């Protein structure tokens, strides 16, 4: 069952081609890793999928659960079950984390035709999930991402993923800036959420994360193109030989 189908996607930013004909197919139950050096277009790919303003396709196709989503607004994509864990989660001063989570969860529930949570029920729900994700109660009382450590920010992203139950999660360099313990906690959260009905795209520099979240497929993105695809062994090859070998071979 296809969750995401990208076909020959081209995208320019300020007239400069960033994505140059990317195709990618993600099915239910799969984990895909997209690896590549800095500036290869990894984050652009994630913003394009999430529908960020300024990241519109020049040509190509993007189908999410067999629907063309290229004209969907970012919030419509989110409500339909497309989730992006941010590389740099954004601070919202004065906005309490619990309220923010409730707004997010309720807009997804509304989209799904489910009853929205009232404050009390939501607090119960969030406590349960937060506990599983090692997010402390005290953190939920703070403003969104304000004063969070690097590790807390990433854990908060994963908590949002677990609460929203998206169909497709794109984790944009979720491992960056994490020490090994934090990495383990975040990976534990991701693995707990993962099941046969959803899918994950891991965007990462390093193979390190892939020791904890094992991908089914690895794609090497260089200069706006997927130069090579393979299984987990491809990541190990890159770790050992760097991207240079792949760039030269292509």
């Amino acid at each position: 069952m296809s969750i995401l189908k990208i076909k020959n996607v081209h995208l320019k930013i300020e007239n400069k081609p960033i994505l140059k004909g990317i195709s990618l197919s993600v099915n239910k139950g799969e984990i895909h890793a997209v690896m590549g050096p800095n500036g290869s277009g990894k984050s652009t790919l994630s913003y394009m999928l999430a529908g960020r303003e300024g990241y519109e396709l020049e040509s190509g196709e993007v189908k999410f659960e067999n629907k063309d989503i290229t004209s969907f607004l970012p919030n419509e994509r989110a409500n339909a079950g497309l989730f992006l864990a941010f590389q740099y989660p954004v601070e919202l001063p004065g906005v309490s984390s619990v309220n923010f989570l409730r707004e997010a969860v309720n807009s997804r529930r509304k989209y799904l035709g489910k009853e929205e949570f009232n404050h009390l029920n939501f607090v119960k729900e969030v406590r349960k999930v937060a506990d599983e994700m090692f997010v402390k109660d005290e953190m939920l009382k703070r403003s969104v991402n304000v004063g969070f450590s690097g590790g807390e920010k990433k854990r908060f992203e994963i908590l949002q993923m677990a609460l929203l139950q998206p169909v497709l999660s794109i984790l944009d360099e979720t491992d960056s800036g994490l020490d090994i313990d934090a990495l383990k906690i975040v990976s534990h959260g991701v693995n707990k959420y993962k099941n046969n009905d959803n899918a994950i795209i891991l965007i990462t520099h390093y193979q390190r994360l892939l020791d904890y979240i094992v991908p089914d497929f690895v794609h090497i993105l260089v200069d706006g193109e997927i130069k090579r695809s393979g299984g987990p062994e491809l990541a190990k090859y890159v770790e050992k030989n760097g991207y240079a070998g792949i760039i030269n071979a292509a």
Partner: protein
Amino acid sequence: MVATSETIKKVRDTTKKYKYGFTTNVNVEKAPKGLNEDIIRFISSKKSEPKWLLEWRLMAYRKWLKMEKPNWAKVDFSDINYQDIYYYAAPKQKKKLESLDEVDPEILKTYEKLGIPLTEQKMLAGVAVDAVFDSVSVATTFKEKLSESGVIFCPISEAIQKYPQLVKKYLGSVVPVSDNYYTALNSAVFTDGSFVLVPKDVKCPMELSTYFRINEQNTGQFERTLIVVEDSGYVSYLEGCTAPQRDENQLHAAVVELVAMKDAQIKYSTVQNWYPGDENGKGGIYNFVTKRGKCLGDRSKISWTQVETGSSITWKYPSCILMGNQSVGEFYSVAITNNAQQADTGTKMIHIGKDTKSTIISKGISAGKSSNTYRGQVQIQKTANKARNFTQCDSLLIGDKCSAHTVPYIAQNVANAKVEHEATTSKISDDQLFYCFQRGLDSESATSLIVNGFCKEVMKELPMEFAVEAQKLIGISLEGSVG
């Protein structure tokens, strides 16, 4: 999905209009248009006022004639024709009302539309309401329950009849008649408003609340509120305001006076949602209001909290005169301007007593092509030993056609006093919006959430019952401000 979002947009566009822009058909008794001594005599006799009050009004009117409108505020509007306004409009009543059941059902319906249940629902909420419709106070609820505790809460016209000595003693004692152009005008023609007296040692058992509504075309509203809290008393008072949508501008020039005796506390909250005019600045209320509190006794405290979202022009500086030693003045303000709205608002903290303390937290949000100015004065007089003030002014800009201004006036006349002023200006960033969108929020919910976060320090000062309403109002006021 494209179709869906288009439909949503259409629905929004049609509902974006001012929610309270309806008018009510009630039989109205009006004084002839225009302003002269006869009109003032007419108002005074309609209200069967004592002679001293008529004299007071006439004195105010004569002073007003010689005064000029203030022109130091950063607001721009064409001159008001004071002869083109009705100064008295009252829903026609056959006889004096004995209970709520006798109030014109059309008026009650209006208040229901406004979300002010005058009857049972407020009982549950424990809020006593005085409602002023155009010029006349139509219903005051819970009078009995209040009077058990000794609290007087009634229309000021009634107080003039029943407690003339009290009114005479305090009327104009905080805001002198000739304080400014609009206070002189108000003193001459004020028609109604609320009167509150909380006796010594009494903590008012419920929130007191007034709703003001301008319904009639070409009417001005000149209400007058007087709140006196005696030693160790406490009251929390909230006013809300709306008006129908009209093409011409309407004038609202109110005066509010607060007096706090020894150890007394007054918490005065305003949610102001007068009709703001259309996107191009046509119509809307001119909100020219003078509010001032006097901390007369030692250790007394006055807190102003305001959420200002409406009016085409807001000119308003709720202030505290800190006379008593160790008295405390607070000003918490959220002022939102969108489209062509102009707001020039802030406070004055006049420190006279020793160890007096004041706090000013102002949050200005400008969107559209609006202009939003904070203007505040902190004056530490020679007698105010060890006085302290802390001021924080934050401005948030939405879009690139609006403006925000901060104009602090600080006069420090005591060496051991401490005055602090902090100011910031920020914008809602694309990153913040996109983060919210990616979590499923549409642009209006996202803006509302971010702005409410920005205002949090002020919003938490509002009485619980009104905080939720005010939060929603912030969202509504900013609709359409983010593409």
